[in-house]
């Protein structure tokens, strides 16, 4: 049974190859089958089409991404600001006052601009750079800058109001540092006065002697007026 010999039953197997259709079943419609096959042969394989669709979609995505990056780069505001010239103030405040608070504030604003590359509008005036100007230390006046620039630049370039775009933290108010000697005489005079032996004297009128302090005023006391001399220790 298991060791069967196929050649022995050759005739019935041969007959199986000769049969074209089973009796009782409808004859196979070759024409319809051929039409189906012909349609399949005419078509290109689906997988190739799908591959091409995927490739095209990927290319579109890459192009869109590149375009978006370019647009983003263009929109990013990169403004380089050269340090502004600090307006020179009158020399009357120089001396005891260590630093001008306004100038200090201007410096801090400039530093912020340099570090963050942000243009900040100062006192509602457009920011002008010192390009093409001979005197860089001079204060920037918009009118003078406009005059110094060629006319086509003045006509084309307009100052941009960036204050609406950029929010800047409010600047800290720094209290004015005042030396204590500023209230009285100048420092040098005080020092000279202290060094000198000439001590200033002032008079104090004592109305009631019994209420005076415990020290003796007999020497300087005359007609209810006490003369007190200040010593350097005082």
């Amino acid at each position: 049974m298991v060791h069967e010999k196929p050649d022995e039953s050759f005739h019935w197997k041969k007959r199986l190859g000769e049969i074209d259709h089973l009796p009782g079943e409808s004859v196979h419609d070759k024409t319809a089958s051929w039409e189906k096959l012909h349609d399949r042969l005419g078509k290109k394989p689906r997988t190739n089409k799908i591959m091409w669709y995927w490739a095209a979609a990927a290319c579109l995505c890459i192009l869109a991404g590149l375009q978006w990056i370019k647009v983003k780069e263009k929109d990013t505001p990169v403004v380089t600001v050269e340090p502004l010239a600090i307006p020179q103030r009158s020399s009357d405040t120089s001396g005891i006052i260590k630093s001008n608070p306004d100038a200090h504030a201007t410096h801090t604003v400039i530093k912020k601009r340099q570090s963050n590359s942000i243009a900040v509008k100062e006192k509602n005036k457009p920011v002008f750079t010192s390009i093409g100007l001979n005197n860089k230390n001079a204060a920037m006046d918009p009118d003078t800058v406009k005059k110094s620039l060629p006319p086509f630049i003045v006509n084309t370039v307009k100052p941009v109001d960036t204050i609406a775009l950029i929010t800047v933290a409010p600047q800290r108010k720094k209290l004015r540092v005042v030396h204590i000697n500023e209230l009285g005489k100048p420092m040098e005079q005080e020092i000279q006065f202290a060094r000198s032996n000439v001590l200033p004297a002032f008079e104090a009128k004592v109305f009631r002697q019994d209420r005076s302090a415990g020290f003796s005023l007999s020497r300087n006391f005359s007609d209810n007026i006490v003369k007190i001399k200040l010593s350097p220790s005082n």
Partner: protein
Amino acid sequence: MNIPELIKEARQGSTAAQKCLFDQFADKMLMICRRYVKMPEDAEELMLDGFYKFFKNIVAFNYQGDAALYAWLKKIMVNECLMFLRKKTVFTIVSETLADELPLQEEALNNLSAAEIVNLIIQLPVGYRTIFNLHAIEGIPHAEIAALLGITEGTSKSQLSKARTLLQKMLLQNQTDYGTRKTR
């Protein structure tokens, strides 16, 4: 136009030659598919798949005679059927257990017509039918069948044995039916 010329034309993409070849072999190939697959619609679809592959790869085919062409086509169809069955059938599961084994009498099959034999084969369970077709009709050894279907050689042998027993039973049943019909 003879077959070598048709093959030559078909290689060059002639639709007429392809149709001639299809008309010549379609019925026989459909019957091969019917032996493996029970449903006629499935068999037709598999036959079309086989011819599609044949025409796509006809450039690689070296014509060495009509028998070689028939064998090549038959192999394509059998492979298509096995691929189809592998997707749907688990061959390791034995669907029916038979208590006693009856040896298949080949002479009894010789007395039957081809259509009757095919009808008997179609009635076999899918596992038995496939292995009976592959071993008893195509002559493929058990080791190769095991590799083709992803089963062990022992499973292939046992399935064949059970297929033969079932066929013998069916033959005996047919004889009885035939006898009773005759007496009536």
